[in-house]
């Protein structure tokens, strides 16, 4: 099984990647690790005519402290996120979630920027950056702009990135408190979450509970008004529209969201 024919181009710099994307127009896609895009291309669910390989832009692979925030380069692999000592100290939620994506081989290739730009609601890191209140930095033909994670995910496989725009950095404010948790429910280790929950500082975000990753705002409001974690968790599925598929129907997912949110809030409280 091989993808439909396309033209492969390799960018040597961010500027070159943007220029190639401008030339390629709507038919071009950026290729980072390729672990979301290439499987879709094999199945003909994505048929780009031009692939712009940004995988060698090592200047986009880093984790560093930056003015009270933590800056993560878009091309940082899951493997490198999971092993970054700065994340282990300051942002264990991101390191822990990255260590659970796919399997070791996938984590060697897959990147945080690729996952976010792909905007799959079943992927883990979109919900994690929502819980972390991250800001996503994109560069395009008209310069650089910052997009709040809350505004970035707009629908199924749909992000706020404009055509020709490249996600370059994820900026994450240092958490105010230590309480965090990541809960992921799968049938097999390598599967996408049937439902997942990311918690940081009383922000709660859900994996695979709709067309895009969502904040469980009813839970957050209950916590803000003083509800105990277990009492707040019963609102986890409120306002969501989870999918029905072979892994579970919407009712089952709503149940899972409540159970996993309760576990996540308990765990976060025990760490906070």
């Amino acid at each position, binding site marked *: 099984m091989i993808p439909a024919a396309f033209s492969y181009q390799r960018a040597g710099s961010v500027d070159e990647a943007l220029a190639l994307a401008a030339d390629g127009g709507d038919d071009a896609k950026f290729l980072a690790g390729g672990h979301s895009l290439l499987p879709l291309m094999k199945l003909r669910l994505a048929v780009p005519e031009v692939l712009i390989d940004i995988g060698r832009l090592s200047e986009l692979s880093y984790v560093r402290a930056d003015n009270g925030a933590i800056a993560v380069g878009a091309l940082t692999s899951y493997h490198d996120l999971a092993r970054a000592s700065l994340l282990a100290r300051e942002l264990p939620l991101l390191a822990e979630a990255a260590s659970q994506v796919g*399997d070791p081989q996938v984590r060697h290739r897959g990147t945080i920027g690729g996952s976010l730009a792909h905007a799959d609601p079943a992927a883990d890191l979109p919900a994690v950056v929502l819980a972390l209140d991250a800001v996503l930095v994109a560069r395009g033909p008209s310069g650089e702009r910052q997009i709040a994670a809350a505004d970035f995910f707009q629908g199924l496989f749909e992000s706020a990135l404009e055509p020709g725009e490249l996600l370059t950095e994820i900026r994450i404010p240092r958490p105010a408190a230590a309480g965090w948790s990541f809960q992921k429910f799968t049938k097999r280790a*390598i599967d996408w979450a049937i439902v997942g929950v990311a918690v940081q500082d009383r922000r709660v975000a859900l994996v695979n509970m709709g067309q895009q990753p969502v904040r469980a705002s009813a839970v957050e409001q209950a916590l803000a008004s003083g509800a105990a974690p277990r009492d707040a968790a019963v609102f986890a599925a409120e306002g969501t529209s989870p999918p029905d598929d072979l892994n579970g129907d919407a009712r089952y997912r709503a149940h899972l969201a409540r159970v996993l949110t309760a576990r996540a809030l308990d765990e976060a409280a025990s760490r906070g």
Partner: protein
Amino acid sequence: MKVSVTVNGNPVTADVPDRTLLAHFVREQAGLTATNVGCDTSSCGACTVLLDGQSVKSCTVLAAQADGRAVTTVEGLASVDGELHPVQQAFRAEHGLQCGFCTPGMVMAAVSLLAENPSPTEEEVRLGLEGNLCRCTGYHNIVRAILAASKEQVS
């Protein structure tokens, strides 16, 4: 496009279609057919090779992405005089295979795992094999083999 990959230490250069997958480049251009294509959907891990020392599923990497880089397949593990790599020896000693289809990928995943974590616990070995499926053995002997190899390599 012209792709040059160092496979098991030997340069292999070929003019291939842009959409050529690394698994097919290794099998058809380098002529090394131990790397199996199993599921073709990056699930089973039978096609696992090392790319610059890290395990990857070669059915989900373009040959073009490996251009200029080093690939190791299971054929590249034994020493020049034919002595098997400790992981290969351990798979034989511990009966870590039945039909053998998943074995090249299992061995490469194990080599990558032990390179990062030379003394893994049984739990860490099982987690390290998340990306490799075996339909014969139930994994127990594979895990035993990798633990045995880790002791062999450390001692």
